[in-house]
C-alpha cells in the first residue's frame, strides 16, 4: 500500500513538474534560451567555446543593469538545456524554449548539424539565429530557406583555400617545395574539407604525395604519421577533429616529422593544445585564429578568464561572443523584444564588436579568421577574410 502511495506521489509530482514549465512570469526580464551539448561527443568543444561565452555575456549584461529597452533596463533570464549531442533531444528542447518557456530569443546552437536541425523551429517562431559553430558550403541555399539565419564563421571552401594560399606564398617565396601530405578524419567535416581541398591544392600546383584518412576515434595514429613521413612532404595538412589533432601532433613530435608547414584543423587553437605541447608546437598552423593584441580583445580575454575561470580559445570563442554582442545591440537598437524587427535590424546595421565592425551581406558576415599559428606561446591569426593585423607566417623549424 505504501509503495503504491509513493508511486502515486511520484507520478503526481512529475505531472506537476511538467506543467510548471512555462508558467514562469514574463515582464521584468528578457528571457533568453540556450540549447547545446553539456554531455556527449561534442561537449568537449562546446564547454570550451560555447557555454562560457553565454555565461560571460549574460553576466556582463546583467552587471550593466540589463538590456536597454524602450521601457527601461531589463535583466536577462537565461534558460539552458543540455541536448546531449543528440539532435532529437535538441529539437525537443528548442521547441520547449519556443512554446513552453516562451523565451524572447534563443542563442544559436553549437555544431553544424544542430544549427540545421533546429533552423525550421527558429524560422517558424521568427527567432534570429546567429550561427557560429556552423560551417557549410550550402550557405546561399540555407539563407534563402531560413530568413532569420546568419552565418559568421565562413565556408569549407574558405578554410581550404586559406591553407592553400599560405602554402602557395611560402612556395613562391622559395621557402618550401610543392609536396603536400594530406590526411583527414573520415567523418562529415573532415571528409568535406578533404574533398574541397584536393582540387584547390592541385589547381595551385601542389603535388599531393600522401592522401589517407582514418576513422573517427582512431587511437593509434602512428602508421598514418609514418606513411606521411615516408612520402617526404614539404607540408603536412590534417583535416582533423580534437582528439586526432592532439594525436597527430604527438606522433609528429615522436617521429620528428621534418616539414616546413604543419597544419591540423579543429582544436589546434584550444588553450589546452598549447599547454600540453609547450614549446614544441612553435610554428604549428591550425584552423581559426585571433588577434589578441587589440585592446577590445585583451579586455574580452581577461573577462573570460575572470568570469568563467577558463581561458578563451584562439578561434570561435571570440566569434561566439561577437554573435551575442550583435544580438544585444540589435535588441537595444530596436528597443523591444520584437523578433521580426530585431532580425531586420541585424540585416540592416553594422555592429561594434570585440572583432571590430561586423555587418551581414545576404545574412553572411565576411569577417573571420581562417588560419592561425602558434608563435611564442600564443595562437595568432595569420590569414582571414576581412580582418586586419594578420601576423606574418613563420616557418616550422623542428619540434625542439
Amino acid at each position, binding site marked *: 500500500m505504501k509503495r503504491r502511495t509513493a508511486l502515486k506521489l511520484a507520478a503526481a509530482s512529475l505531472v506537476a*513538474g511538467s506543467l510548471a514549465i512555462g508558467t514562469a512570469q514574463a515582464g521584468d526580464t528578457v528571457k533568453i534560451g540556450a540549447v547545446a551539448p553539456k*554531455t556527449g561527443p561534442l561537449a568537449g568543444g562546446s564547454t570550451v567555446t560555447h557555454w562560457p561565452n553565454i555565461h560571460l555575456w549574460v553576466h556582463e549584461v546583467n552587471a550593466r543593469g540589463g538590456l536597454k529597452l524602450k521601457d527601461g533596463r531589463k535583466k536577462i533570464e537565461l534558460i539552458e538545456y543540455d541536448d*546531449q549531442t543528440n539532435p532529437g533531444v535538441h529539437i525537443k528542447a528548442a*521547441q520547449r524554449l519556443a512554446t513552453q518557456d516562451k523565451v524572447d530569443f534563443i542563442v544559436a546552437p553549437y555544431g553544424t548539424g544542430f544549427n540545421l536541425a533546429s533552423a525550421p523551429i527558429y524560422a517558424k517562431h521568427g527567432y534570429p539565429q546567429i550561427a557560429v559553430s556552423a560551417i557549410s558550403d550550402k550557405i546561399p541555399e540555407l539563407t534563402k530557406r531560413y530568413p532569420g539565419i546568419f552565418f559568421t564563421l565562413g565556408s569549407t571552401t574558405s578554410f581550404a583555400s586559406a591553407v592553400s594560399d599560405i602554402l602557395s606564398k611560402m612556395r613562391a617565396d622559395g621557402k618550401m617545395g610543392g609536396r603536400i601530405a594530406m590526411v583527414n578524419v*573520415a567523418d*562529415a567535416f573532415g571528409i568535406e574539407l578533404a574533398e574541397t581541398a584536393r582540387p584547390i591544392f592541385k589547381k595551385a600546383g601542389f603535388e599531393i604525395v600522401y592522401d589517407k584518412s582514418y576513422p573517427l576515434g582512431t587511437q593509434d595514429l602512428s602508421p598514418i604519421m609514418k606513411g606521411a613521413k615516408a612520402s617526404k612532404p614539404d607540408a603536412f595538412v590534417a583535416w582533423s577533429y580534437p582528439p586526432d589533432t592532439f594525436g597527430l601532433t604527438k606522433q609528429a613530435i615522436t617521429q620528428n616529422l621534418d616539414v616546413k608547414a604543419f597544419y591540423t584543423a579543429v582544436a589546434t587553437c584550444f588553450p589546452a593544445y598549447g599547454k600540453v605541447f609547450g614549446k614544441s608546437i612553435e610554428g604549428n598552423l591550425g584552423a581559426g585564429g585571433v588577434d589578441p593584441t587589440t585592446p577590445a580583445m585583451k579586455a574580452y580575454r581577461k573577462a573570460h578568464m575572470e568570469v568563467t575561470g577558463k581561458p578563451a580559445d584562439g578561434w570561435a570563442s571570440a566569434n561566439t561572443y561577437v554573435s551575442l554582442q550583435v544580438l544585444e545591440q540589435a535588441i537595444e537598437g530596436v528597443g523591444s523584444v520584437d523578433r521580426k524587427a530585431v532580425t531586420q535590424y541585424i540585416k540592416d546595421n553594422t555592429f561594434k564588436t570585440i572583432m571590430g565592425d561586423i555587418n551581414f551581406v545576404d545574412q553572411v558576415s565576411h569577417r573571420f579568421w581562417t588560419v592561425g599559428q602558434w608563435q611564442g606561446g600564443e595562437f595568432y591569426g595569420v590569414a582571414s577574410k576581412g580582418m586586419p593585423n594578420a601576423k606574418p607566417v613563420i616557418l616550422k623549424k623542428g619540434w625542439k
Partner: protein
Amino acid sequence: MTSREIRTLVIAVILFGLAALLPFSGNGYFISIGVTIAMYVVLSTSWALFSGPTHYISLATAAFYGLGTMIVATGIETVPYVVLLLISAVAGALMAALVGLATLRLSGVYFVIFTLGLAEMIRQLVSWLQNNLGGSRGLYVLTDLTEDHIYWELLALAAFVFLIGWWIGRSRLGFAMRIIGNDETVAAHCGINTARSKIMLFMVSGMVAALVGALLAPRWTYIEPNIAFSPLLSFEVVIMALLGGTKRLWGPLVGVVPFTILLEVIEANYPSQTILVLGIAFLLIVYLVPHGVVGRLEQSFAKFRRGGN
C-alpha cells in the same frame, strides 16, 4: 473475427484517430514530443515482434535505423523521396535476412554481441564508402516536410506494425514463434523450420526500423554517420519495450509513453544533471515496476475483478 476482436479493433481505430489530431493543436512542443513517442512506439513494437516471442535480444535497431537515414541522405537530391522509402525498407529487410542467416542459428548471447557490433560496423562502412568513393560531402536533406508530416507518417507506420503484429499473432508463424520461444528443440522436433521462421520475423523488424530512419531523415536536415548510427538508440528501444512488457502487442506502447514523458520532465528540470537523474529513475523503475507496466496493469485488473466479485 470474434466480437471481442471487433471491439479491440474499434478501440484501436478510435485511439489512432485521436492521436492523428495532435498536429492540429498547433503546439510545436507537443508535436515534437509526439514525433518522439511515435518513433519509439514503432521501433520498440517492431523490436518486440521479434524479440518478444524468441527472447533474442537484438541491439541492431541503430544499424537498421541508420541504414534508412543514410539511404535517404545519399539519394535525396536525385531520387524521389517515396522511392527512397521503398529502397530503405527493402534494404533493411535484406540486411536483416543476411544478419539472420549468419547469426540466428547461434544461441542467445552471440546474437546480442553481434547485433551490438553491427551498427558500428555499418557506420564505419558508410564512412569508408563516403571517403573513398567521394562525391559525398556533408549530407543535407532539405525537404518541405514538417514535423506534422513526419508525425503522421510515423503514425501510419505504427498502424501498419500493429496490423502485422496482430496478423502474426494469429498466423502459423506466430504460433511457431511461441513454441520456439518456449523451447527451440521441441519446436524443431515438431517440424518447424526454426531458422526460417526467425529470419522472417527479424526481416519485418529490420524493415520497419530502416523505414523509421528514412522517415526521420528530413527532421535532422544534416546527416552525419555518427548521429545516424547512435548506439544509444538500440538500448533505449530495448529498455522501453521491456519497461512496457513484450508479451502483449500493446506492451511496448505503455512503456514508451511514460518513459518519454519521464525523460522529458527530467531533461526540462535538470538540464545539468540529466544523466544522473535518469540513472536514479531507472533504479526506481526496476524496484517499483519489476514486471513492466503491462504486468502492473494486469495485476491491478485481476485485483479489481476479484474485488468486483
